[in-house]
């Protein structure tokens, strides 16, 4: 996260490859399910042996035995509807919910976040030197309408995507944050409204950032978890 600051996001998870390296973020939507970005994985049927999610820590490279750290192998992956750029990861076992690990709510299906809503991104990705990159960073961003976003992105933003305002100072998600959450505080609850996906640029001043709009795919998420 560029232009952010160290913060806490108990539903944000770190995806680890077989060498134990962080390569993407994810959001804990159910005790045994993490939502992330399709771009983070090479295929929908890749063997995930050795891949894990790490939760309950703020550090990008927590020391073994760090209190609260949970390292859970990924059991399987389910790719989202075409064009969603989403994957659901089923974990080998449920996480333990506590102060450091919490679920984030899903929005109602087809819910559109009102422009002006303040939301937060979180991740262990590239900070470009703007913050301490050994811990989790968060940044507050304001939602703008797709109509306004398409002015800058020349109509390329589709309705299953949503945008946040491009600020004059560089601020936004970046390399290594993909798959992480855009969470909005609504009715006393943090709600997962967007998923960080690779943008053409990251934290480019004056450019709105594009996220996958979770509410369009909430029925798919419920269906996968149910089935």
């Amino acid at each position, binding site marked *: 996260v560029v232009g952010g600051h160290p913060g806490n996001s108990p539903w944000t998870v770190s995806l680890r490859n077989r060498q134990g390296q962080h390569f993407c973020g994810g959001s804990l939507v159910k005790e045994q399910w993490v939502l992330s970005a399709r771009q983070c994985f090479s295929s929908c049927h890749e063997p995930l042996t050795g891949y894990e999610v790490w939760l309950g820590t703020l550090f990008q490279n927590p020391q073994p035995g760090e209190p609260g750290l949970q390292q859970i192998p990924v059991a399987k992956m389910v790719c989202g509807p075409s064009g969603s750029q989403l994957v659901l990861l089923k974990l080998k076992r449920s996480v333990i919910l506590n102060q450091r690990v919490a679920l984030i709510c899903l929005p109602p299906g087809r819910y559109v976040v009102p422009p002006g809503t303040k939301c937060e991104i979180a991740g262990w990705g590239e900070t470009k030197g703007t913050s301490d990159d050994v811990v989790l960073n968060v940044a507050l961003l304001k939602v703008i309408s*797709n109509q306004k976003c398409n002015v800058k992105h020349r109509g390329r933003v589709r309705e299953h995507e949503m945008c946040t305002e491009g600020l004059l100072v560089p601020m936004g998600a970046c390399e290594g944050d993909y798959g992480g959450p855009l969470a909005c505080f609504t*009715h*006393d609850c943090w709600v997962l409204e967007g998923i960080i996906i690779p943008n053409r640029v990251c934290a480019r001043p004056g450019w709105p950032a594009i996220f996958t709009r979770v509410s369009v795919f909430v029925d798919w998420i419920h269906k996968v978890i149910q089935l």
Partner: protein
Amino acid sequence: QRSPLNDFQVLRGTELQHLLHAVIPGPWQEDVADAEECARLCGPLLDCRAFHYNMSSNGCQLLPWTQHSPHMQLQRSGCCDLFQKKDYVRSCLMDNGVGYRGTVATTAGGLPCQAWRHRFPNDHKYTPTLRNGLEENFCRNPDGDPGGPWCYTTNPEVRFQSCGIKSCQEAACIWCNGEDYRGAVDHTESGRECQRWDLQHPHPHPFEPGKFPDQGLDDNYCRNPDGSERPWCYTIDPQLEREFCDLPHCGSEAQPSREATTFSCFRGKGEGYRGTANTTTTGVPCQRWDAQSPHQHRFAPEKYACKDLRENFCRNPDGSEAPWCFTSRPGMRVAFCYQIQRCTDDVRPEDCYYGSGEQYRGSVSKTRKGVQCQRWSAETPHKPQYTPSSVPQAQLKENFCRNPDGDSHGPWCYTIDPGTPFDYCALRRCNDDQPLSILDPPDQVQFEKCGKRVDRLDQRRSRLR
């Protein structure tokens, strides 16, 4: 630092079974510390050629046989691993093959070998013993002949002949950087023995075989799990962590690439991507591969001829998650090139539907990945929630794609793939279909409640976070 297990080749989850019921295998030795201790027991014994190791009971059973012994067969096992002495199961030679105990019994010229216990048609001075392993009529090298194992032949005209068994060095060559090398060389170019991949001593390392099932990290053989320029291994020398192995190249022409070559998108991990994207996802220009600044690195183009490390194009020479490059920004060493689209692995849509396809009555019966649909009336591999009788209006016929639950992403089906309960179909929206946009619906969905409301007390805490 040499582990006694280095002399053994392991078959996980496997047992040796003697087909002659009268033959009783040896007793189990319980409470041994680990497989290394079993190896320590079996190693020096001339009549121990293998052992079963039971991980749960920490027991081991020494065996005078291997899988190549008469009347033996391998079978799946829930409790044990089978460790066999390499000399008895390796089909190639280390050094001049003095230790070779394989079962080749024909000379390089195709002549059958004479049994070592026979003195006819060729008389000789050798007496078979457990130590010299002059067994049956197998090729052996009792006199350390530089030409490797040999035997007396059954042809009186030809007293003896070499068997022409290849050294492990030459038995398997490497393509490109040797990621696919699965040969049996277990020494480095300086002659040091390799450390087993399933051991963390003398050198701890991240390449646990179980985490890299596709990398063939068997025993202590040379491998290339990290995209190095050629196969290597950790050494048993505490002073030298890892070292390359000296293996012959198969040829100059590039290996038939594992991944299909693509140019405008990338498939899988993008190891076959040969396009010209040369910036990172975030628009930072890539550093040229033949440059060592601002970032020094080991990926010299000439050492990775098959990986096409031209100019500063995004590539994936080391099996990472996606094409990447060193960046021209000093503070950012490497970054993925996720802006390159993934090649869709969806099959071409065969029909189209309106709305969300609840009225689709066509006969497409495969998913967008080309997997066959399960019949709606079937119960396996997936027990359906929706059946022809439970939702008659949906007309769930045969295994045709339908949308009985009004899924907003279109018609779907249960699949015949046990690992994939359901998936969307090889269908697309009809061109003249104008679905309602969620952005300006008459009744904007209102947000009444959160899916997981915490109780008031926690709420304050969660607000504090």
